[in-house]
């Protein structure tokens, strides 16, 4: 357990038994897409094209990809402020993301939300919002709806370690545990909330202890291991669907960029260059690539092709986003109330 928090460990190639090459390639593809999409955003934050605050999740790609691999479109997924990966892992919709970040009409929220308000209901991504912890009760309510409608839906809430310091988190866990609601809580424990390390905010680094206190089954895993996450989530989600009980998954990870914006070694004023160097060895993408090459599932060349093709998609999508139009002025007032 302690090793999970120590970046010296878990740096080797992933175990890939039980996964087919197609599935593994999909994981790799999805993670690279997310990584490169966020790097594109970083580049355009730095050069000033993007004005909207962006919280990048570079380094944390395995989580969304692993979790999404076991979900259905009818499940209800909610994100937070750092949710590009949650969105892209479900729909690979670069255009929707890029345009949204630029405030364009063609964005996933029609340019009304920006980076911090993404939505794609067609794949069950029901929305992300930046008020820390706010979607935890909302996802819990989606689980209540799922329990009432008896269609076997699962609700998913993504949130960070910082969010567990908000009362809403604890209230929600109690509600889900008491009323037996089918919700999967995913805590991306990247050890930081903005500039503050978890040791300055909580008496223990292990968040799953809260699930235990609410009698919710839980596990703490390597958040940079997409195959393990996928395998474990499959079991968890099956259990949730069968029992209507919540499940809590804590995933230990690390973000490579600052809290907000494009910088690498600065976190809203806090330097952490040395730490970052070590944590980079736990790169979820490199670890999967290693496994794929060593197991001869893919060659370095085919991996290079994947990179190249994603680079191309990103370039094209970014161009479309830049060329897109802004929302009509009347949206400002017309969207406040429903017409019904």
């Amino acid at each position, binding site marked *: 357990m302690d090793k999970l928090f120590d970046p010296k460990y878990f740096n080797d190639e992933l175990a890939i038994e039980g996964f087919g090459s197609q599935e593994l390639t999909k994981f790799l593809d999805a993670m690279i897409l997310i990584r490169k999409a966020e790097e594109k955003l970083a580049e355009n934050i730095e050069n000033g094209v993007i004005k909207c605050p962006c919280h990048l999740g570079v380094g944390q790609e395995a989580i969304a990809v692993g979790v999404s691999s076991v979900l259905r479109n009818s499940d*209800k997924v*909610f994100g937070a402020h750092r949710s590009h990966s949650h969105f892209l892992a479900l729909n690979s919709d670069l255009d929707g993301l890029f345009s949204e970040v630029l405030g364009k009409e063609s*964005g*996933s*929220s*029609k*340019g*009304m*939300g920006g980076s911090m*308000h993404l*939505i794609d*209901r067609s794949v069950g991504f*029901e*929305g992300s*919002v930046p*008020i820390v912890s*706010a979607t*935890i*009760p*909302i*996802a*819990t*309510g*989606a*689980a*209540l*709806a*799922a329990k*009432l*409608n008896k269609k076997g839906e699962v*609700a998913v809430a993504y949130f960070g370690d910082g969010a567990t310091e908000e*009362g*809403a988190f604890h*209230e*929600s866990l*109690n*509600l889900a545990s*008491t*009323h037996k609601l089918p919700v999967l809580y995913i805590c991306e424990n990247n050890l930081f909330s903005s500039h503050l390390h978890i040791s300055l905010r909580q008496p223990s680094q292990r968040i799953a202890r809260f699930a235990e206190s609410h009698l919710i089954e839980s596990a703490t895993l390597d958040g940079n291991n997409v195959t393990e996450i996928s395998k474990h989530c499959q079991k968890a989600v099956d259990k949730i669907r069968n029992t209507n009980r919540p499940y809590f998954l804590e995933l230990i990870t690390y973000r490579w960029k600052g809290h907000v914006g494009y910088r690498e070694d600065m976190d809203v004023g806090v330097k952490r260059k040395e730490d970052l160097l070590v944590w980079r060895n736990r790169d979820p993408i490199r670890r999967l690539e290693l496994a794929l090459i060593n197991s001869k599932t893919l060659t370095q060349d085919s991996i290079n092709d994947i990179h190249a093709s994603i680079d191309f998609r990103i370039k094209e999508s970014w161009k479309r986003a830049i060329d897109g139009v802004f*929302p009509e002025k009347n*949206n400002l007032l017309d*969207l*406040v*109330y*429903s*017409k*019904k």
Partner: protein
Amino acid sequence: MKREISYAEGILEAFNYLLTNHQNVFVIGQGLWSPWYVGASMKDLDVKYGKERVIDSPVSELAVTGAAVGASICGYRPVVVHPRMDFMVLAIDQIVNQAAKWRHMFGGKSIAPVTIRGIINRGGEQGAQHSQALHSWFAHVPGLRVVMPATADDARDLLVASVLSDDPVMFIDDRWCYEHKSQVVDIEPVRLDSVEPRVLKEGNDVTILGIGYSSLLCLEASTNLEKDGISAEVIDLRILNPIKVKNILKSVEKTKRFVVVDGGWTNCGMAGELIARVMENISISDLSASPKRVTLTDAPAPTSSNLEEDYYTKSVDIEQVVKTMF
């Protein structure tokens, strides 16, 4: 066929109607399996519709409200019940940051049609933390529809309309109205956005606008004012946000005098708002006196009965203010 019902019965009829006719309606909140604090307004709902759809909850205002918001996003029409507005402030993030903005910030792709029943439960020496009337706060927030009925028929029909509205609605319910009686016919759902301020009584010399329970006080005052030869037109605001003023302007243009009565505090309250609305929309020459407002004493609620007597507005306070305008 007309029948007479009380405000509390009106609420109960609305719940029965909604739970019977709309499978996606459910109710959640504290005390629902023993709703002693809301009089008869929720009697036996859990027995009739089951504890799955009438859900009593832990003491967790924020998560429970958020859960209702979440269920509303997923196709349900939940009503969250907060026995007191004072407790509901713990849930403001979900009401104001989430539900009220959900549609707008997602470009209209999703809605959060939750109804929040916030109850004003004051008097009775309950004191500063059990007596607040914070309706003006919620009226301040674009995206939230705010409803505050005064009469039994409105209590019923506006609750139905609130739950059927595609927007989040703050339905504010004043315990002091619960015994009020009015005539009703069978429920015919109306669209919430078609509801205008309602003229409760016609008159010629002064327009008295009430909000929630205050409207009943205005009626009382108008009856006494008649004896003094003053014919007051009484209007009940009903919808606090988004606000509609056409009826009010028409009335003020006729009477040339305007008084607003609100059971909330003065500063940035509903009463001042209505004075401002009227002033920006009529020409000054239409008025024969400065507009006035009658509001709650600007202090936390006391407990002592001696001070409660002064704290809350009585119809005679309204009468006095009206008389200064002639």
